[in-house]
């Protein structure tokens, strides 16, 4: 993440959300990427050397020394001489200038033409798109070398004309690339917003769409440059390059080939020159592509974790946390978690995104995990499934169904799906679109040890269990043919396939319409009554919590700030953060204005030593900033982390901010 941002960064650092980042200087960036540096050095060297040689007429590419023909490398001729005793190095450099420049010409033509047509086709669409796609298809179908030979026949040995034609032919690739990028960006909301702002089509294309294409076009261009050099050398080899006695790389290979039995060395300089140059151009394209993907995914480039980070990760993972003592009310629970931490690499060490969470869920219990985004809810859920994404490290004590799960030896693999399963927010994303529901369920059930016939019967049973009508038809459908509610039912059925003892539901109804949400909640409630699982329900919707949960855990900035039976929490929250969340929720049957919470959740790594909510709390005093806030018991099965809670209750009887009755919306006429 960029470090110059002083305003609160998006919590958790939304991946790929950042602006084009410029970390350190260009030189420092390059030094950390030796591959790119090597490619650039080689290309630069060849280009500068050949330009200098050509422009300042250094060396004598045409001077013959017949007495010294076909000599190997020597002090006078570092790369030897050819059949006529001409210096190979001078000829390579002299020919290189034209090779590189004409290849450059071809690529510039291809890029300009391709980008313009691609933008137009993608943005305007309709007939323009159709015609452009015909043009592009024709260009791709034409055999390049034959066309170039035909051009050479008509126009004579003019390498610039041939490369111009090559540029037109190569533009097809760029048309296709830019068109597809344009089509996808055209759907972006910011393009709609620009149109609503009354910007002209040209300006939208130039300011909002083209910048997205620059990166990919640049990368493709680098590879195209390599192709152009090869084609150019090929033409030279066929005798269509610079007319003799002027040198060209292809022509030099052709000449070397005729005397291969007399002096095999002669093939080496020109051949190696072409190979290395093309390789450098192609590799450069590949490296840049990797960099771009890495940047899009929000990683700071394709670099490996440092050794210090790896060591820190091992140390974290090995952190021993003892089994919870029996008197914390968690004995016999399906899920028991103590001092759970999830940490991610940051700078040279690690930073916690979940820090020291204790949690337990009994059979038949539904626990709601609430908090704003960036508080660590989802990471907590994923850590219980062993699914925290790669550089993240999970440590602490996790016990599922009476057996301890180790967080760092892969012991999750055998238990995922059987003892613990997941329902995710986007059912469509959870279901692979290329398989039918039947084969998706078959795959899962066979993994749980069913045979083919058994899996079929069980699949039907499970779909019936989740209330799906016309089971046979649904088994034959693909996920995209199902409605959102049906798809979520199917994904619940799949989660239940292994008869899990613990079910993690991560915002399972957030993407659904309220009427469908009500049905899914009803289903989960019925399943809970029938199957008696431990259900962890992660959500930001307090209405959903009130509907389905028996106990609530409120998280803030990576830690639990309050835990209470659901009625107690809603009746009288004890932590000001819980109170603030309640006061911020708009209610359909209530005229009060919701009260926002000022500020944002501080990002991981910037959590203070004292109460983490103090910076946003309307009741914070110096007491709150004097030392770490610890969990304190407040009645049966109830804890909170507020130093001032009791005092606040004595003073005002509540920790919720006072809500104002809504001011009348502006009345116009009625």
């Amino acid at each position, binding site marked *: 993440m960029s470090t110059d941002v002083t305003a609160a960064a998006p919590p958790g650092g939304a991946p790929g959300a950042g602006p084009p980042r410029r970390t350190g200087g260009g030189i420092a960036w390059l030094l950390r990427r030796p591959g790119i540096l090597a490619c650039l050095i080689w290309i630069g060297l060849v280009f500068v050397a050949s330009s200098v040689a050509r422009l300042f007429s250094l060396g004598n590419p045409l001077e013959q020394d017949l007495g010294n023909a076909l000599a190997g490398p020597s002090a006078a001729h570092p790369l030897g001489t050819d059949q006529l005793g001409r210096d190979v190095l001078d000829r390579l450099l002299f020919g290189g200038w034209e090779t590189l420049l004409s290849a450059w010409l071809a690529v510039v033509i291809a890029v300009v033409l391709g980008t313009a047509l691609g933008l137009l086709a993608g943005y305007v669409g309709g007939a323009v798109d159709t015609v452009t796609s015909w043009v592009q298809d024709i260009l791709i179908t034409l055999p390049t070398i034959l066309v170039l030979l035909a051009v050479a026949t008509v126009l004579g040995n003019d390498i610039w004309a041939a490369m111009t034609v090559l540029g037109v032919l190569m533009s097809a690739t760029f048309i296709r690339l830019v068109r597809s990028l344009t089509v996808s960006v055209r759907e972006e909301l910011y393009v709609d*917003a620009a149109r609503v*702002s009354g910007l002209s089509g040209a300006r939208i294309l130039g300011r909002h769409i083209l910048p997205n294409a620059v990166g990919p076009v640049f990368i493709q261009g680098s590879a195209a440059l390599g192709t152009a050099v090869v084609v150019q050398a090929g033409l030279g080899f066929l005798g269509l390059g610079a007319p003799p006695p002027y040198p060209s790389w292809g022509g030099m290979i052709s000449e070397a080939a005729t005397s291969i039995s007399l002096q095999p060395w002669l093939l080496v300089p020109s051949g190696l020159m072409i190979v290395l140059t093309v390789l450098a151009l192609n590799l450069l394209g590949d490296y840049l592509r990797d960099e771009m993907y890495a940047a899009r995914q929000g990683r700071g480039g394709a670099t490996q974790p440092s050794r210090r980070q790896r060591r820190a990760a091992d140390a974290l993972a090995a952190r021993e946390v003892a089994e919870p003592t029996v008197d914390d009310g968690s004995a016999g629970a399906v899920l028991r978690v103590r001092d759970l931490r999830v940490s991610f690499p940051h700078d040279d060490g690690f930073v916690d995104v979940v820090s020291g969470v204790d949690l337990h869920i009994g059979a038949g219990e539904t626990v709601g995990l609430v908090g704003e985004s960036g508080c660590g809810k989802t990471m907590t859920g994923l850590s219980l499934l062993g699914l925290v994404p790669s550089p993240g490290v999970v440590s602490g004590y996790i016990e599922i169904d009476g057996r301890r799960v180790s967080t760092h030896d892969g012991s999750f693999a055998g238990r995922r799906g059987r003892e613990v399963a997941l329902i995710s927010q986007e059912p469509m994303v959870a279901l692979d679109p290329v398989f039918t529901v039947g084969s998706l369920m078959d795959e899962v059930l066979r993994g749980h040890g069913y045979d083919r016939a058994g899996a079929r019967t069980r699949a039907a049973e499970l779909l019936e269990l989740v209330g799906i009508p016309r089971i046979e038809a649904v088994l034959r459908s693909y996920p995209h043919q199902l409605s959102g509610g049906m798809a979520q039912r199917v994904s619940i059925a799949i989660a239940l396939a292994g008869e899990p003892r613990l079910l993690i539901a991560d915002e399972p109804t957030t993407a659904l319409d309220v009427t469908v949400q009500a049905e899914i909640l009803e289903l989960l409630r019925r399943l809970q009554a029938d199957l008696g699982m431990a259900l962890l329900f992660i959500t930001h919707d307090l209405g959903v919590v009130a509907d389905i949960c028996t106990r609530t855990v409120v998280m803030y900035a990576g830690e639990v700030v309050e835990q209470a039976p659901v009625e107690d929490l809603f009746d009288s929250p004890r932590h000001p953060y819980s109170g603030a969340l309640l006061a911020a929720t*708009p209610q359909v049957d209530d005229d009060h204005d919701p009260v926002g919470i000022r500020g944002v959740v501080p990002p991981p790594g910037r959590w203070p030593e004292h109460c983490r909510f103090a910076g946003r709390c309307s009741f914070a005093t110096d007491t709150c900033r004097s030392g770490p806030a610890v969990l304190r018991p407040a009645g049966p099965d109830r804890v909170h982390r507020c130093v001032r809670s009791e005092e606040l209750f004595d003073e005002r009887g509540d920790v919720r901010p006072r809500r104002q009755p809504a001011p009348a919306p502006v009345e116009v006429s009625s």
Partner: protein
Amino acid sequence: MTTGPEPLLDIRDLSVEYRLSRRETLRAVHGVDLDVHAGETVGLVGESGSGKSTIGRAVLGLTPPASGSIRFDGQEIAGLRGRQRARLARDLQVVFQDPLSSLNPSMKVGDLLQEPIRVVRRISRGEAAEIAGDLLERVSLPRDAASRYPGAFSGGQRQRIAIARALSIDARLIVCDESVSALDVSTQASILSLLRRLQRELGVAYLFVSHDIAVVRNVSRRVVVLYKGRVMERGPTAEIVDRPYHPYTRTLLDAIPIPDPRGQRERRARRLASRVRSPGGTAAGGAAGAGCPFAARCAFVQDVCRTRAPVPIPIGARQVACHMYDPASGHPRAGEIATGGWDDPLAREPGPAPDRQPAGTTRHDGG
């Protein structure tokens, strides 16, 4: 319904179609009427597929209407293109749902704010920068936010930037398309109060498109409830939320979980009691377009509902498109049909009945 000065936005009989393929079209919006007066907020609620966003996009000129008229300030804008449409940008703006994808990530906030200003008015870069700074202050962001990229801001801050952009050329109507749906409740509340403050200060009107009735109740006095592209019920928000007439509105409201475990338990029980287990199987209705779109899910469905589309019936300050309230339809009233948990909403109150139309029944609660 609303008398007085001419509405700022006046939509009549709007239909919008999407072409699915060469032959097939999907009618997303069916003959919708809607008006928004200067300085007021009208809520447009419905579930996915209700056509609520499509109406917003048609107003903004992003989706062409199939038929009907959209008048803004007395001028027909439905078919406007090019330069004439661009001139509307001065008055008509939008705040989308996703504050990140609605701001070009590769442009600095200052440039994003200046761009629309400089298109509409020929002013220098310095003046535009000055205005951009003022706009940032107006939405409670520091002036120096102009020099950063959208990615450097939190979701709520980005939505403030999107609002500032919408305000940059003195818009008179802002279409808020699920503008607070992607935000945490903690942020949602402050964005809602920002929108209200701006309305008080600048007199801007909002067409507030949302799936969340609780939010709509908080910002808008009038609401239009859509289902499958048709208006089911419209009228004063508080009245409709407290006492829905249309069975769909009621279904929708009952499905919203409230943050009160005991109250929610009661609502749930009530909802389950009146729930319909898809009567008439899944052979939903007759031909597309015939009958009431909600017939397949309605607890009170009668034959007439499947064959004839209901017309809007005025009841007090409201309009309800349901045969149950249309004496001419032959549909029995809710109280005359045995369905658990649902009484006749009209039976409880004296006064308004569908066949007579007394005036002055609008409740002005909410402060």
